[in-house]
């Protein structure tokens, strides 16, 4: 999924599955990571929290 598709999905208020979110990486795109974090916040799944914790502690300002 590219960033434009992700944006369309978010604007349409569609929720992505945990597996889809885990598969998404936008290493140089803070907005992409912002959209993913927003989706993770809305998922009631312990794995979402684990993923957010990894994103939080990542030292690379572009990756976290």
């Amino acid at each position: 999924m590219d960033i434009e598709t992700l944006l369309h999905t978010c604007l349409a208020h569609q929720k992505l599955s945990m597996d889809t979110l885990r598969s998404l990486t936008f290493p140089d795109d803070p907005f992409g990571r912002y959209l993913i974090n927003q989706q993770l916040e809305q998922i009631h799944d312990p794995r979402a929290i684990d993923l957010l914790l990894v994103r939080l502690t990542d030292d690379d300002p572009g990756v976290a």
Partner: protein
Amino acid sequence: MSPSSAAHALGVLREPRAHEPLLDLLASSHERAYYQQIEIGVVADGVVYTGADPIATLLSLLHTYTDDSVIGGHVINQLPLHGDNQVIDGLLEAIGSESDHSTESATRRLAEVGRSAPEALVSRIFAHHSPEWLDDLEHSLKEVLRTAGPNVVPSLIATAQSSASESALRVILPALYAIGNVRAVPLYERLRTHRDRLVRAYAIFGLAAAGDHRVLDDLLQEAGQGWNEYELGRACAGLGSAILPRLIRLLESSTASEQQREDVVSVLGMLRDPDAVPPLIAALSTETSSMRRRAVRALGETRDPRAVSPLIRCLKDDQEHVRQWGVVALYDLARHQVAKDEVVNALVEVMTNTQETPHVREQAALLLPSLGGEDLVPAFQEVFEDQDPNISVIISGGLERLGPRGVAALVQYAQSGQEPLQTSAFERLCFVRDPVAEQAVIDGLDAASPSRRKHAAMAIGRWHLEQAREQLMAALDDPDEAVQLEVIRSLGIIGDERSLFRLMALRGEQRGPTTETKAHAVNRAVIAIYRRVSSSHSDADSGA
């Protein structure tokens, strides 16, 4: 940007495992140059939401970051205020902070506590701190109590009447006097012979302000002792006309010091008694310019028409500061409807006088728009067309404040093609929120000068001129990077869904030395537009 969105998400989820990592992230937040204040606030909030006890966490953060104006200031604003002793103690610690921002925020919040829980505040200040601590924070504590207002008066009086130390009284008495409350009179009476000079003086001020003539002699002794002239003046005014002959005698006394006489002059103005006017006019002829300046200010306070002509003559004084205060004093008279036309003419003469110093001309130009209306536009235009670099900014601001005719004149200059009038007027228009100026500002996006295009782009965002969205989108291709940057920022404010996708496409086109700044601006704009568009979608969904 992104770590704070993860921090926000983990805070919303109240995830305790995120608490320590968030504390670490907060500790390193300043080193991360890409952070901005709001994002540090998001991380700090995340720390609080993921902690076991929100108030304890906030207080711990406040203790750690009290000297950090961003984190400390944010935490202070988040603290709930309900007279909790620990919260009050935390804020009292913060008013001694090295950060002015933390000190100001803590002062403001403590004053809020003083209004809702005055007994708790006063008790925490005076019953739980040493005299040395009170001495160190005397100024800030007085400010807290003064700002808290009348609600703290009963607790302050009760504290002062019990076993308060001299240090406590040195905070309480000035605060009570500043708040001004007759309930404190018995306390003033008890302390009017106190051994501490400051305590004694404020007790005398308080009694005088309440009209107690027995303190007249004591009060006169305080003239020239370095008190704030308004505090002294308020005390003298409390004694009414009884004090006037004594003040005049002191002013004319050969044994009075210069400082005493200057204080007397200031106080005479505040009495607003017709009999005070002749000695003040006489004081305008003294050789000391500081005395003339005080007399000028005092005459402005009298609101007496006899002051007008002498003050107009002071506009020719050889000292700039006397002339400058002359302008202010005349303005004071005119705003109270004393000789308004005569004053306006005198101030216009000062403003248009190219032999006068910029400071005095500026002072007149700053005050005139509050006195006159559109009739003053030609006088301001005359000075604006001179384009004296020292005052042109004030003059263009004055034109703006004169109303639609002044703004129309600026629009005309902005479209005149005549430099430097055109640029000067256009830049001023960019700070005016006036429908008359909107189209001229939007047209500025097509100006030849990059500076004008940049100002236009900024103003479009600042004023939320949504009708200019298409022009802004087109201006994303502006050849000037600085203009592009402002266009991006303004699109962040007024952009719609189409702008969002256009900005996302732009991210692949970034080149050149300012790429990083531009990339940040684009990312910020994209997120700002997304939040707005996304929430409007939600509103539409819930409406449906």
